């Protein structure tokens, strides 16, 4: 079993679980399929020698963001009965629009100029923590510090939004 077969099987599983996210009726089932999709994408990252990004993807996306979604879903107590449904016309036109977009993307990319892959011998280790950390704390140190400001702003915003305002309700 060579690497190409593994890549094709992984790609098929990724597309299948991503389709189940939008097909399944129950919201909790959608979240669980999205977690499965993120694990499949992480497997693709490992196949491409991006080990650091693969682990961060599992920890941040599947571990933190999806658990947050699951918490909110359980908090809001949604079920299959009160799940809002869209009409068959909307679904049909959405699928047609998506298929058109896919066709346009592929047609535009088909005429692209192919550039050969790198043949450098040290290209295998760029996805490891060592080289990424070196780059993150030298060339990209300003965006890294700015992202901490963004996180503080998001945290303050979330606390302010989710707080119950007694003065306005009464």
């Amino acid at each position: 079993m060579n690497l190409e077969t593994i890549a094709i099987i992984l790609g098929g599983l990724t597309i299948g679980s991503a389709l189940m996210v939008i097909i399944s009726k129950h919201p909790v089932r959608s979240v669980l399929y999205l977690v499965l999709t993120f694990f499949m994408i992480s497997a693709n990252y490992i196949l491409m020698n991006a080990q650091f990004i693969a682990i961060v993807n599992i920890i941040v996306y599947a571990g933190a963001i999806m658990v947050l979604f699951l918490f909110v879903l359980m908090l809001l107590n949604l079920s299959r009965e009160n799940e809002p449904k869209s009409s068959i016309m909307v679904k049909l036109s959405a699928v047609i629009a998506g298929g058109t977009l896919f066709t346009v993307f592929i047609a535009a990319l088909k005429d692209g100029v192919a550039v050969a892959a790198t043949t450098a011998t040290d290209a295998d280790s760029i996805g490891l923590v060592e080289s990424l950390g070196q780059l993150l704390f030298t060339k990209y140190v300003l965006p890294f510090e700015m992202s901490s400001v963004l996180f503080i702003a998001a945290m303050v915003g979330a606390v302010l939004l989710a707080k119950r305002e007694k003065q306005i309700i009464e």
Partner: protein
Amino acid sequence: MVLATIFQNGVSIEFYIVLSTILFVIGMIGVMIRRNAIILLMCIELMLNAVNLLMVAFSTYFGQADGQIFVFFIMVVAAAEATVGLSILVMAYRNLRTTDVSIFNKLKG
């Protein structure tokens, strides 16, 4: 142990271009056919992940680590966006008792 990249073993870059385009289109169709606002946020996460996949593929293909740093920053922005979006949804559910997006047109004016 570090293996040789899969692009030196016969997998073409077009495979990952098509794969991430399909994932992006699935996310976009999901935004259009679902009306639960939480599922809409999840489909946006799916579209962001399709872009991440393509960026990592090209980063490995060209042997440049910059693409993977950008993926890291996209994850940071996605985490912040999910936090604020979900707290807005919880706030809206408290007042409207639904997460149907078509009811949010009451926000205008």
